[in-house]
């Protein structure tokens, strides 16, 4: 029955293309209506950057999940489990555990001490211009890497699902994704983007729940039976259910995975598009609640991807999954087709269309969040506070943010189109590595270390950023391996794909050396910084109001 799956899948995608396009069109239409509605309520900078800070903990939790569960985690993890069994699951765990860092250390103090961007938290205590430049640079670098991976992935994925193979078609799809994301962000601002994330999260959870339920039904709700069938059908037997198929090959790949695990756990709470989400709620308490919701939703989602992945391994032939996409990215849609009744059946076609439309929605919501993070940081940190030295009006700032969105959108369409045939999956790991090495340590030092200085912050950000980018540039992600971005050239000497652990350490060393710096910041910011209570409920003790008092300077 599964022999003609591949052929059937491609013919099914062509045959049922109208259905997929109709579902996708409905999503686009609904989100555009929401965007226009949100745009009409977006007036102040707080509206544009932080959605007016009026979202509830639950809404923001849903939006965080929508922002975080990218196509890479939806299709990528299900595919990795379908191909490599346990190692795919192992990969997903770091993405969840990471949220505890956000919950325990970052979300609440960040909400209390910042306004719109990561740079705000640092500028609270340090000299504004240098730290904002650094924070803006790192935000934009992380977001562009992440964005590029999503855009190129979108092209590949949509081509596969719609059966488009021509170069023009792929470029057209990347351009469409880019255009929609520009519209969402410029018109809807944070409010529109947040609603898009929420709609997407609900669709993603509903779609995954449906397929998970159907797969479990087929295996009589017996997980052991499902795993057994997956192990047998994969042709790898018990090894399929044990660690080692993907990351266990050599000593290098093992260390690489350890490094990846560290990058995932420490990187999540340093991702700019996640950080700015904590500003959309009215209080630190609501920020805590939203992370709790996010942990629940994301945890449930990854538990379902286990069923999805092992289900795909049990239902489909390994060779068919690989033939459709080498990385297994289409395993989940193929499993949906199979569980719905197989190729040619109406049920299969409908499920395939649903999952494909959910995947589009996922890509759109994530790229919108990333674009918003980078354009906010450009407008608020670099334009308003560095270039205009704080003299820009709110209107000018928001206008700059909109133009930055258009610019970033165009750049990412161009890069995404150029990179459409490169293997850019490693760029996501790079984004996590930079977030873990540059952003998170700097945020934590700034929040919890009284004697942290401007110099320490600069070393921490640039040290982490440069070391991560340089190491990846000379790693197999970029050159020298069949899976590299540039296969034909070979200039790698650094063997690991995710250099998170080394830069993390170098960043903390450099920051540590700043301790002896004569410029001790005898600031009291550390008090107000954190739940010090003065601020939660409203904007009234925003950091900048404190600066109006001359004595704030020591």
């Amino acid at each position, binding site marked *: 029955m599964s022999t003609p799956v591949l052929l059937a899948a491609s013919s099914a995608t062509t045959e049922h293309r109208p259905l997929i396009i109709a579902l996708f069109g409905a999503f686009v239409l609904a989100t555009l209506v929401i965007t226009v509605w949100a745009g009409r309520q977006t007036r102040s900078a707080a509206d544009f950057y932080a959605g007016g800070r009026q979202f509830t903990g639950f809404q923001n939790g849903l939006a965080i999940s929508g922002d975080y569960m990218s196509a890479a985690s939806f299709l990528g993890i299900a595919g990795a489990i379908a191909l490599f069994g*346990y190692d795919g699951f192992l990969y997903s765990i770091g993405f969840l*555990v990471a949220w505890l860092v956000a919950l*325990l*250390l970052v979300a609440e103090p960040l909400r209390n001490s910042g306004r719109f961007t990561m740079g705000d938290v640092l500028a609270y*205590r340090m000299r504004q211009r240098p730290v904002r430049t650094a924070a803006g640079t790192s935000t934009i670098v992380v977001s562009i890497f992440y964005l590029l991976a999503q855009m190129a992935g979108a092209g590949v994925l949509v081509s596969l699902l719609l059966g488009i193979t021509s170069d023009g078609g792929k470029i057209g799809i990347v351009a469409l994704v880019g255009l929609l994301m520009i519209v969402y962000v410029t018109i809807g601002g944070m409010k529109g983007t947040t609603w898009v994330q929420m709609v997407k999260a609900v669709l993603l959870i509903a779609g995954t729940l449906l397929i998970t339920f159907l797969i479990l039904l087929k295996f009589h709700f017996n997980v052991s039976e499902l795993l057994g069938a997956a192990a047998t059908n994969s042709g790898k037997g018990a090894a399929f259910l*044990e660690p080692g198929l993907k990351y266990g090959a050599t000593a290098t790949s093992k260390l690489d995975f350890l490094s990846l695990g560290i990058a995932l756990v420490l990187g999540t709470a340093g991702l700019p598009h996640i950080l700015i989400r904590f500003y959309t709620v009215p209080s630190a308490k609501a920020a805590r609640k939203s992370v709790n919701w996010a942990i629940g939703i994301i945890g449930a989602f990854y538990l379902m991807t286990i069923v999805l992945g092992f289900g795909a391994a049990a239902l489909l032939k390994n060779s068919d999954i690989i033939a459709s996409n080498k990385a297994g990215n289409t395993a989940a849609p193929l499993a949906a087709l199979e569980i719905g009744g197989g190729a040619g059946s109406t049920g299969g076609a409908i499920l395939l269309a649903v999952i494909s439309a959910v995947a589009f929605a996922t890509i759109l919501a994530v790229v919108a969040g990333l674009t918003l993070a980078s354009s906010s940081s450009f407008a608020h940190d670099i334009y308003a506070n560095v270039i205009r030295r704080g003299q820009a009006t709110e209107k000018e700032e928001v206008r700059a943010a909109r133009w930055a969105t258009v610019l970033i959108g165009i750049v990412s369409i161009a890069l995404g189109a150029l990179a459409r045939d490169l293997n850019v999956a490693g760029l996501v790991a790079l984004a996590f590595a930079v977030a873990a090495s540059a952003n998170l340590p700097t945020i934590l030092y700034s929040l919890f270390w009284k004697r942290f200085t401007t110099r320490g912050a600069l070393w921490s950000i640039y040290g982490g950023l440069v070391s991560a980018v340089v190491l990846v540039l000379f790693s197999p992600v970029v050159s020298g391996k069949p899976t590299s971005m540039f296969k034909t050239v070979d200039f790698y000497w650094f063997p690991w794909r995710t250099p998170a652990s080394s830069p993390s350490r170098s960043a903390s060393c450099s920051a540590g050396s700043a301790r002896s710096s004569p410029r001790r910041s005898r600031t*009291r910011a550390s008090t*107000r910084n954190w739940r010090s209570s003065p601020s939660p409920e409203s904007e009234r003790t925003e950091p900048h109001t404190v600066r109006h008092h001359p004595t704030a300077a020591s």
Partner: protein
Amino acid sequence: MATEAPPPPRNGTETDRGPASPTTEQFVEVQEGAEFGELRRTYRSFAFPLTLAFIAWYLLYVLLSNYAGGFMGTKVFGNINVALVLGLGQFVTTFLIAWLYSRHAANRLDPRAEAIRTRMEGDA
């Protein structure tokens, strides 16, 4: 700490809401006070050790997956092996820690923070 840039322009819609902000002196006074020190200690003595604990537990799991394949492959029942049980254990501990922290924050941190804030705003 000196700032290079002048303060950002006052934002009408954001800052004029609610009572006047406490002054810098009041913030410093509160920071140095015992009540705030107690609040900070209550938070840190809970969050920091817990963070170390879950990171250590996660690293242990990754190291076991990397270097103890035989142990991880031991069958517990049916096709469920130790690796799967430990992996699901990571989910369980994550949910558990989130719940523990939220309970701690609601019971021990929020009331104290609220008390300090009410007093400061009353004074201001």
